[in-house]
């Protein structure tokens, strides 16, 4: 089943490249929905008491201890669910735009989905690294072919930043791999890598290597400079992939690989990392308040939200990690909704600037309602999906350190300020020529925004669905990794 989740998108991506018709968009949607169905089946057959579920393993380079092994626990399944839940929505929201050569675009999107599933399922260090990099290639092409004006420079910066980060991760991974010893051979299997005991001095370097890769990906202050430009210049589908799913690779990497492989370094380095994350929260929030470009505003808000998730996870206590996991799912859902809204506004109005909007709520009340629900989710109002996650994260950081928790708490206030300001400027106030004839949502918008709004409310009322899924796995990983 794990293998299917990777093979379906990758093979249909190849098929789409070969087909190159105008109808490939339907093939892409069918593949994404099929993957969602497989995910649902995997969830239905999931046994949270077992250490791993749906495992698949085949030797790849046995001489070097590399195997193609996949498996899922609650944490993996949560992220796989996020990926495959968002995939059909992302494909569907791409229907609004013509890409010249559709086959290329949808092929790349599916390749990306396959690679992302691979990242979350990989049980072998090198396999994880390969999928981690494989995910980078399609998104690079998506952003650079269909991006905005400055796309070539911006995307090359993005590529080189993330690639250099991952190379440091590779060196760290290799270092740990060289210390493994399974019957006289080295091994990349997660279970073998975790058993390696590093002296604290080396562990610091190993953890730094991992952190560079993941901090660039998330991004954590001060490694975030590629992010706003890339989000803004990328086509909407690309931005959704980047912000909705791809940045979760970084947080997932912290939970699954960075801390378990070098727990010895947590004492020394965690305070620095958490400080950086908290600085990022405040810094990005303040910049977001000043933005007039809606897409850029959401890009900065994303840095702030991810900063909080990173801080909570790095506090490495049960509340923090659980909060981080639930918030990864919710942030993914909300941010895809918000970027869909930005795309819709930009398509209809020809601008993303808040100063050119206003009064849309009058002409499009249904749109205003859906946008409101998603905004409230992003602001983390109680009974929306954002609330339980942010609450647990803050609680986790608080337990770790009072002052860090206090500073991170600003995210709620600032979040409310910039999101409600943006909402107010866009939807209320006086109409202008542009917004007066703003048509309300169409069928496709209903499907995407409706699904997201429904999830916002559903997960707001029943966060337990997610918490139960990951509970046993989080206990297991916290128990196995003693700091």
């Amino acid at each position, binding site marked *: 089943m794990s293998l299917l989740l990777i093979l379906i998108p990758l093979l249909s991506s190849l098929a789409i490249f070969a087909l190159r018709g105008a109808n490939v968009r339907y093939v892409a949607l069918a593949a994404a929905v099929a993957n969602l169905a497989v995910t649902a089946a995997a969830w239905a057959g999931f046994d949270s008491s077992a250490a791993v579920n749906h495992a698949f393993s085949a030797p790849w*380079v046995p001489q070097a201890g590399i195997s193609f092994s996949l498996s899922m626990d609650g944490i993996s399944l949560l992220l796989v669910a996020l990926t495959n839940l968002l995939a059909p929505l992302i494909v569907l929201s791409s229907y609004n735009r013509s890409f010249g050569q559709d086959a290329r675009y949808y092929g790349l999107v599916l390749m990306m989905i396959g690679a992302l599933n691979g990242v979350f399922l990989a049980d072998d260090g090198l396999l994880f*690294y*390969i999928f981690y990099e494989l995910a980078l290639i399609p998104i690079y092409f998506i952003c650079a072919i269909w991006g905005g004006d400055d796309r*070539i420079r911006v995307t090359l910066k993005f590529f080189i930043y993330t690639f*250099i980060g991952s190379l440091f991760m590779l060196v760290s991974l290799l270092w740990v791999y*060289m210390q493994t010893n399974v019957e006289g051979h080295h091994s990349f299997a997660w279970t073998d890598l975790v058993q390696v005991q590093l002296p604290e001095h080396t562990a610091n370097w190993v953890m730094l290597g991992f952190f560079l890769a993941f901090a660039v990906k998330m991004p954590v202050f001060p490694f975030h400079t590629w992010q706003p430009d890339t989000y803004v210049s990328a086509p909407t589908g690309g931005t959704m992939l980047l912000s909705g799913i791809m940045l979760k690779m970084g947080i997932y990497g912290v939970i699954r690989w960075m801390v378990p492989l070098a727990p010895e370094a947590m004492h020394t380095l965690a305070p620095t990392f958490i400080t950086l994350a908290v600085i990022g929260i405040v810094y990005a929030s303040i910049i977001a308040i000043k933005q007039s470009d809606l897409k850029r505003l959401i890009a900065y808000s994303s840095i702030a939200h991810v900063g909080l998730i990173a801080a909570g996870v790095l506090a490495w206590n049960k509340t923090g990690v659980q909060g981080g996991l639930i918030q990864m799912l919710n942030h993914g859902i909300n941010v895809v909704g918000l970027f869909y809204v930005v795309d819709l506004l930009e398509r209809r109005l020809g601008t993303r600037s808040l100063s050119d909007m206003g009064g849309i709520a009058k002409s499009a009340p249904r749109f205003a309602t859906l946008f409101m629900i998603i905004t409230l989710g992003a602001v983390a109002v109680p009974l929306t999906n954002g609330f339980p996650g942010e609450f647990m994260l803050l609680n986790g950081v608080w337990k770790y350190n009072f002052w860090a928790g206090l500073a991170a708490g600003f995210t709620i206030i600032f979040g409310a300020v910039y999101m409600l300001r943006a909402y107010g400027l866009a939807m209320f106030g006086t109409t202008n020529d542009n917004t007066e004839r703003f048509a309300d949502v169409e069928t496709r918008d209903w499907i995407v925004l409706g699904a997201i709004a429904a999830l916002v409310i559903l997960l707001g009322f029943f966060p337990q669905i997610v918490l139960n899924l990951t509970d046993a796995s989080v206990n297991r990983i916290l128990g196995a990794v003693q700091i």
Partner: protein
Amino acid sequence: MKSLLILFIGAIVVLFAGLGKKKGLLQPLALIASLLALGASVLDLNMGDASGLNERYADMFAFDQYALVFTAVTLVAVSLLIGLTGWGFRTLSDTLGDNLGLILFSVCGALVMFSFQNLTMLFLGIEILSIPLYVLAGSRRDDLASNEAALKYFLMGSFATGILLFGMALVYGATASFDLTRIAAAISDGQHSVGMLNVGILLILIGLSFKISAAPFHFWAPDVYEGSPNLITAFMSTVVKTAGIAAFYRLFAEGFIGAQGFWSTAVAAISAMTMVLANTTAIFQNNFKRMMAYSSISHAGYLLLGILSIGNAASNGAGALLFYTLTYSIATICAFAAYMVVAEQNRDGSFAAFNGLGKKQPLLALMMTIAMLSLAGIPPTAGFFGKYFLFTSALDEYPWLVVLAVINSAISIYYYFKVIIAMYFSREENDYAAPVPAGFRWVMLTALVLIALLTILPGSVYALI
């Protein structure tokens, strides 16, 4: 030995057939010779236990597993290159037989370099490899750049040969033998003149660095690569490099292993210098062939990491070199094949020649993309595994050098991506009206399949030695 004989006879047949009128037969003949030789070497390969295989000839050659696998790798590259000659050499129809014959003769030299057991054979192998190449570099006789390249290559090559010979003479003086096993025995006995031996090794090291174009002995490469006909440049940067590094490894692993403490520092320094110089210079190139020349120099730097793994029983340096040269050769040939078609219509050779290729010739552009990603070592391409095997083989003893190599790989993305950016993202679009020649299609598809296979089953080649 069979491969060597087949190639030699094939070369003579092609040479004489070139006198006749049926020029169309020449390329198939050369291809058949190359494929037969490939088949012969693969059939002799011992897939399971490599130790039993050792066909020796009067202590001069040893066609052991090591020689056979490198022969096979080289012949894969040669076969692909010959597949390109039908169109690539079409302007040279009156000298086609000579050119193809010379290529095959040159490959004979490479085979000798894989199997030598005696320094004289190494010297002969290098000369058999090089002399046809001096001629081939100047095969576009009416082109000034081609003539310049030939002359430069010849002068620099003879210079390097002189240094190499001097080194060999000194090693002979120190150990009283040209035979690899006797040299090794003499060194381990300690009954030799250390100073003379070290100078000799150093001079041989310099001579071989010339051949594989490692810094600071690389200055000839960009000019020669740029001036030579495209196909010959591809030949130089694949077959010659493979032969050079394989001979390098054999010589140092079998002959000079006892003096490792002395030469390993020098090799590490050359490797570091090569990587840094080549990559930082390649960034500033605007000409595709010059960029590929610096890229090829930088790969020589990575390949030297394999030499540094000699003596480390835990790592398989030879296997890493084998896999690396194979993936590197295939990717380089793909890149040059695509460039040859592009250069037909956009002669200036700058990256702008690739503008809009992605839309006009998707297969060619895909080929080129995969080649560039593989050369840059981006997962999951085969080039990644090449770098992975090579870097891990040296990680135990030279972690700083591996970190340097990793940083350099990151730098290399910048210039490899220039081509990809031009092909797909440029708003300007050139005209590529001419269809891709039929022979090229076959070569490209074969290369694609090979890259895919190497990606899926990297262990199968890596574990051959």
